[in-house]
């Protein structure tokens, strides 16, 4: 590169950084010079491809290739700055082994095929399975990284065309408990607050969430707040010491699973010390209790139905009686005095208190319960639905909200929180979709785990996987990997952009377009729906998953379900009809093309920052104050649930004395198919390691980076120990990230799940460790 261009680019880089830092005037370049420096690059907006934060990115394109990215200075989420994963946006589409042609399995080899060949084969397999075994023998497994269009098309085809509820998504593995938490507490999914609460609050309780690595830009907003306001306090409740813990004001270590007990203890103290808001409770809260000892979903076809009963305040107080600070200190390892201190902090009337959480709460065999319990604390104290003061469920994937939850791509769901079990909901869906209401089945079939159990048993024959990697990410992985290759009529289709541990088990691999290689819409964790246009062509013959699904629809005789001339805008306007008037209103498509996203409900062109609150939510009339208007059966009140502490299904014992926790690290996204693809990035964080406490290592006789064998009742793996990493495991615990395709840690994980949400617990199972 010639020197002057290089110097120009460096000036551009500095100018962008100055602008983002809020000091554009100090920048080295005048705007017109900056534009000249960029010579030939056109910029388009898009939400980032990675996490649920939904940062705005400007994507710079030259000669049909992405050559630069910028934090979008007009994006309210991140105001011109991206996290370190923003570097990887340069690489995720350009790995050497990008899939570019359909591939069909012939024996042990995958052979190149045309789209016509591949789709003819796939359609034939669908028709054969449906004819022989019925519509419930075929399935779609999609993703919280699907665009809204991809999810909508899949749901409409399978539920309204083929006539099966066999639509599930990887969001069952990440956000399902958050959803059931919302639905049981508020009768409506998704947060009442928004990211503005990170700027406006002063007290932040983080529960089992390593925000510094997994939601870095949101964490930065909190840190920015703290730098400006010395009153701001961040308390990190965790089972391991992370970068988040390092930066928090207080790190509170607790024993896995005892989050349930801790939240009840906090409520106990709030009640005991009369710190609750009596008027708020009277106006806005009802109390309920459900079934207990509800199982763990370990048996195939496990079923559970709760039986909620209304209880009075006194009964709730009696329920909390055993959760004294001393008792809970005993099981959790958190000192009683700390429990009392933090309960008082939670209830402090002079503070604006927020709670934030993700997978520590959601990937939990009592995930629904623990989501209920954190809401309890906010409801008892009235610290909710106020600017700067809310519980905020953080979403992991870029469109688990926008696609899977809002479109409803789950076995039991339809768009806009509707459910297949409700005949009125089926009628409404059928009306908008233009199908016979009898087409949409009334009974849910399988959650994600059960879907792959069904494939293993042969009850499902054909499964199409899009934008996800289940044969690396499912718990108790060995069973499901074997199940996929049992033959006997089973047929697995995987659409992806790179070879993965799932494509290797497929009968057909389809090459997909990714991110800005197609038009799309995502919805982030703060209800912000964000649109982007296609900016570059996909390589080779790769096509969008949307095209692929519509192609199957056409070949199965359901092409009339998608009669659009301009697919995306017309599909959007059809989809909008579900949300109109439901408190989930979406704007017309053109509004999203123009804006840096809008937070729903969008009514008369205005977005909503705080739901259920007068003056902010258009559905709340003057004088109504706070109204949980989606919960009509409980007179528009929220529910405080009496949920007990129950142990994990597989805790450490003599034979398997350690807790195994799994999760993500900053540099790698999920199963590493995008970030792990490029050798350079793999070198930065080369391979999975076993994070262990130095005392445990000493007892095992291992030193840093030495190999250990980790074994559970389901699988075994050899990894180097990491005693000096940026995070540190607590004694009796280890942590392994799941990004490494060469180290399938999920083979060790237990496929127990929350009976209410169906979400597996990836954070807790028992292992033994030996020097390898």
């Amino acid at each position, binding site marked *: *590169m010639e020197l002057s261009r*290089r110097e120009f*680019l*460096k000036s*551009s*880089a*500095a*100018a*962008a*950084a*100055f*602008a*983002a*830092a*809020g*000091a554009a005037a*100090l920048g*080295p370049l005048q705007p017109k010079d900056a534009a000249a420096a960029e010579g030939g*690059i056109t910029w388009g907006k898009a939400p980032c491809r990675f996490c649920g934060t939904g940062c705005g990115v400007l994507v*710079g394109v*030259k000669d049909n*290739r992405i*050559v*630069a*990215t*910028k*934090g979008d200075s007009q994006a309210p989420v991140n105001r011109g*700055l*991206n*996290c*370190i994963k*923003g*570097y*990887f*946006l*340069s*690489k995720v589409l*350009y*790995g*050497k*082994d*990008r899939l*570019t042609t359909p591939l069909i399995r012939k024996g042990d080899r995958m052979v190149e095929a045309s789209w016509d060949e591949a789709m003819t084969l796939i359609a034939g397999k669908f028709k054969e399975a449906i004819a022989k075994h019925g519509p419930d023998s075929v399935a779609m497994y999609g993703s919280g990284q699907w665009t809204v269009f991809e999810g909508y098309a899949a749901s409409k085809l399978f539920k309204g065309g083929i006539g099966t509820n066999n639509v599930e998504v990887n969001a069952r593995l990440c956000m399902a408990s958050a959803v059931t938490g919302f639905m049981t507490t508020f009768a409506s999914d998704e947060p009442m607050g928004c990211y503005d609460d990170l700027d406006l609050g002063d007290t932040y309780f983080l529960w089992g969430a390593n925000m510094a690595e997994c939601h*870095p*830009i949101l*964490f*930065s907003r909190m*840190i*920015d707040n703290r*730098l400006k306001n010395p009153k701001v306090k961040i308390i990190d409740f965790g089972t391991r010491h992370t*970068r988040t813990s390092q*930066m928090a004001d207080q790190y509170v270590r607790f024993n896995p699973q005892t989050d349930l007990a801790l939240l009840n203890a906090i409520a106990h103290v709030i009640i005991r010390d009369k710190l609750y808001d009596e008027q708020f409770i009277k106006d806005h809260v009802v109390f309920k209790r459900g079934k207990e000892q509800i199982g763990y979903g370990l048996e195939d076809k496990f079923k559970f139905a709760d039986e909620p009963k209304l209880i009075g305040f006194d009964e709730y107080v009696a329920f909390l009686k055993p959760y004294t600070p001393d008792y809970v200190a005993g099981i959790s390892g958190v000192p009683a005095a700390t429990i009392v201190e933090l309960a008082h902090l939670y209830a402090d009337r002079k503070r604006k208190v927020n709670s934030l959480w993700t997978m520590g709460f959601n990937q939990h065999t009592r995930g629904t319960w623990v989501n209920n319990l954190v809401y309890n604390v906010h409801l008892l104290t009235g610290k909710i639905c106020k600017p700067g003061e809310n519980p905020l469920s953080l979403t992991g994937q870029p469109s688990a909200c926008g696609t899977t939850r809002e479109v409803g791509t789950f076995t039991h769901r339809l768009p806009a929180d509707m459910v297949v079990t409700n005949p009125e909901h089926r009628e409404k869906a059928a009306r908008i979709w233009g199908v016979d209401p009898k087409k949409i089945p009334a009974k849910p079939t399988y959650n994600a785990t059960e879907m792959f159990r069904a494939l293993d048993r042969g009850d499902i024959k054909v499964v199409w996987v899009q934008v996800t990697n289940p044969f690396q990410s499912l718990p108790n992985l060995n069973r499901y990997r074997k199940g996929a290759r049992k033959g006997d009529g089973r047929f697995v289709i995987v659409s992806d952009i790179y070879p993965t541990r799932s494509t290797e088990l497929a009968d057909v691999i389809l090459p997909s377009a990714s991110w800005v290689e197609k038009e799309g819409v995502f919805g982030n964790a703060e209800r912000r729906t964000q649109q982007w246009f296609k900016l570059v062509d996909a*390589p*080779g013959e790769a096509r969008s998953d949307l095209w692929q699904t519509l192609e199957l629809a056409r070949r199965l005789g359901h092409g009339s379900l998608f009669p659009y001339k301009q697919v995306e805008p017309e599909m959007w306007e059809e989809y909008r009809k579900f949300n109109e008037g439901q408190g989930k209103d979406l704007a017309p498509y053109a509004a999203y093309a123009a804006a840096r996203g809008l937070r729903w409900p969008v009514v008369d062109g205005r977005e909503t920052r705080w739901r259920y609150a007068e003056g902010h939510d258009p559905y709340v009339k003057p004088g109504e104050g706070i109204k949980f208007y989606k919960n009509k059966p409980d007179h528009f009140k929220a529910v405080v649930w009496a949920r007990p502490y129950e142990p994990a299904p597989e805790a450490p014992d003599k034979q398997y004395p350690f807790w195994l926790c799994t999760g993500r690290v900053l*540099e790698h996204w999920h199963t590493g198919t995008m970030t792990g693809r*490029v050798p*350079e*990035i793999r070198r*930065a964080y080369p391979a999975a390691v076993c994070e262990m406490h130095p005392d445990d290592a000493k007892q095992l006789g291992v030193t840093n980076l030495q190999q250990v064998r980790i074994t559970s009742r389901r699988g075994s793996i050899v990894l180097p120990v990491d005693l000096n990493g*940026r995070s540190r495991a607590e004694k009796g615990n280890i942590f392994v990230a799941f990004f490494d395709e060469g180290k399938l840690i999920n083979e060790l994980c237990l496929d127990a799940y929350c009976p209410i949400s169906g979400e597996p617990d990836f954070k807790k199972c028992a292992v033994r460790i030996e020097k390898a």
Partner: protein
Amino acid sequence: MPVSGVVITCVDGCSHDVAERIAAFDGVEVHGVLPDGQIVAVVEADTVDGEVKLVSAFHGLAGVAAVRLAYHNFEDQEQVQP
């Protein structure tokens, strides 16, 4: 050689110290230290991995509260077409 512009947020009073330390890294130019404790720096390396290594290292320095990316140009990245 990819080039990037980053903003480093520092804890009160640490910014000049941090600026001095990061300026010593090969491939890092400090372009400004702002009154509010933010540092503007330009990072270059032979590869994206090299940039990421440098920027990751900033995270480990005492006094650094956040490291964020404002701009990244990789137009001369090896164009790998399958």
